[in-house]
């Protein structure tokens, strides 16, 4: 089921489907998950989970030298009625519900934040307006922690916008009660020097539906780690991602779906376009189907469109299956070059080059964008993709 085609020089597409007694997804990490940064050695760059990341550009987030400054980020939360927004101290137990940090930077974030935000949607509340969280970088270093918790059968949309310039390490938790429905859109629209490393933990109650839309355009280094696990059967997760990696940018998305419970489903689809010298996109898609997770249905996909020379993609889907009693499991990864023959064909029909490129890139993202289901977000993404293309020509 893995596929690879027309891979630009220097890029890799590796894939594996393992049927193993011992979890390689877990053992590939240098240390077991922990809230304490001291449990993680300082990475040197050859570890499996760090080997694609330019550590020297993390501004000390990985080795303890990054220290929070007063002017880190400004967080503003706008919530409609029926939502409780609290600022809490470290002792609050809700901060530890969704999952533990799995790498040194996430643990550093957890060990370093002072106040956390907890956003609670009451049970059975169905919001007709999104909850908007604006994270605006002020040029400093910040460690963050946010929890969004939905009571049983609550329904909400959360839009998290990252703008400005900052060095930010954070954990963002999503806790879904039974039957709850949550859509989270996380937009990384940073200024060019920003560094953003974050772990997203989603824990799904019985029959809960979680949709994550991760959109990464800006920043110097963005490394996100969306993770999903299931507290009870019947949960469904959709993880969509869209990135546009420009010259010099490093954008890394590492996903883990841990099917630890029977009869849950997951669908992962990430698409990226790259342009410019040393644009580097990394996509790691780990799906683990544990022995207990009978009836699992999962698919993960990554597609990359390389628009110019000098860009690099590393795409690694991993599917690990410990039970044969599943409904379906598959993965696909492909990285292709912008095709000169496509360009010629469109231009031979009178379409100018810039317009032809725009058609092809829009076409590449269109199918994914249509699955987001939020018209204003879709329009914004299309506009942003067009702006990225404008900047390149």
């Amino acid at each position, binding site marked *: 089921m893995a596929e690879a085609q027309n891979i630009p020089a220097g890029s890799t597409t590796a894939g594996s489907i393992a049927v193993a007694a011992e979890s390689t997804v877990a053992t590939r990490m240098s240390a077991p998950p922990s809230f304490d940064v001291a449990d993680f050695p300082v990475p040197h760059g050859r570890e499996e989970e760090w080997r694609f990341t330019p550590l020297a550009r993390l501004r000390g987030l990985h080795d303890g030298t990054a220290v929070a400054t007063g002017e880190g980020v400004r967080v503003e939360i706008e919530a409609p009625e029926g939502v409780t927004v609290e600022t809490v101290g470290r002792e609050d137990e809700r901060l530890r519900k969704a999952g533990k940090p799995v790498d040194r930077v996430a643990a550093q974030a957890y060990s370093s934040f002072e106040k956390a935000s907890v956003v609670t949607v009451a049970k059975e509340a169905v919001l007709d307006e999104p909850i908007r969280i604006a994270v605006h970088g002020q040029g400093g270093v910040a460690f963050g922690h946010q929890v969004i918790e939905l009571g049983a059968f609550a329904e909400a949309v959360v839009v998290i916008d990252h703008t400005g310039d900052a060095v930010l390490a954070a954990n963002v938790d999503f806790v879904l009660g039974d039957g709850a429905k949550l859509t989270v859109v996380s937009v990384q629209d940073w200024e060019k020097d920003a560094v953003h490393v974050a772990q997203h933990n989603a824990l799904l109650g019985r029959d809960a539906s979680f949709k994550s839309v991760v959109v990464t355009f800006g920043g110097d280094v963005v490394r996100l780690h969306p993770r999903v696990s299931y507290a009870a059967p019947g949960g469904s997760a959709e993880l969509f991602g869209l990135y546009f990696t420009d010259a010099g940018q490093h954008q890394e998305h590492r996903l883990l779906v841990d099917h630890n419970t029977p009869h849950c489903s997951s669908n992962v689809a990430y698409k990226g376009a790259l342009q410019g010298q040393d644009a580097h996109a990394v996509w790691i898609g780990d799906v683990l189907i544990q022995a207990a997770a009978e009836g699992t249905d999962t698919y993960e996909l990554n597609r990359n469109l390389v628009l110019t020379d000098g860009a690099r993609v590393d795409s690694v889907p991993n599917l690990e299956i410990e039970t044969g009693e599943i409904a379906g499991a598959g993965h696909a990864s492909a990285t292709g070059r912008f095709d000169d023959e496509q360009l*010629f064909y469109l231009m031979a029909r009178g379409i100018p080059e810039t317009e032809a490129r725009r058609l092809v890139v829009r076409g590449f993202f269109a199918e994914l964008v249509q699955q987001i289901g939020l018209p204003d977000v879709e329009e914004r993404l299309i506009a942003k993709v067009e702006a990225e293309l404008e900047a390149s020509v």
Partner: protein
Amino acid sequence: MATLEIHDLHVSVDAENGPREILKGVDLTIKQGETHAVMGPNGSGKSTLAYSLAGHPKYTVTGGTVTLDGEDVLEMSVDERARAGVFLAMQYPVEVPGVSVSNFLRTSATAIRGEAPKLRTWVKEVKEAMEKLSMDPAFAERNVNEGFSGGEKKRHEILQLELLKPKIAILDETDSGLDVDALRIVSEGVNRVRETGEVGTLLITHYTRILRYIKPDFVHVFANGRIVESGGAELADQLENEGYDKYVKGGASA
């Protein structure tokens, strides 16, 4: 009256051991309303002629001139040539994932005509053109050439020819890979455009079969990178009976 004049055209491609000359001095004049068949064996350079006229970047023009009504075609970019009125129906049309046929046709028509066609008349125009080519309306919502059969690809090329109404239409082996029914449908489409009298047609083919449907005014035999003989429709009959042997014997390999 639109006229495409090709004079002493020399074209090379980059090969492993340096540039290799494919076209070695082609002379040909095509006027609006005329149909010229260019026939020749495989490897003679017929397709190179087609792609060079459309401006494919793989081919380097090393000598000669191409003008359309006196304008220098070789100076134009690929899209400028198309807007000037040169159309190439490709032998191997390219898949463009994520771009629907209807979006593609409208974008193209807008570029060629210089303004967006009025939506209502445009929808009707496309629908009628598709019906004449026996194309299912659902076709418009598919992605350009993606998963098309050989016959669908060629019909889609001729659909564009009918909608874009070029001054000069170059049909590169449009007949290849078609069964008899598809060949008839495609040929009828070409004939509809020819009957307007407003297009000059350069029909490139290996076989004489398509000439039973599309009657050329002139037939040119192409061998070893140039036109080696020209005549009327009767020349095609001669080729049908005798093949290309006498043109390639002793010449460069086909």
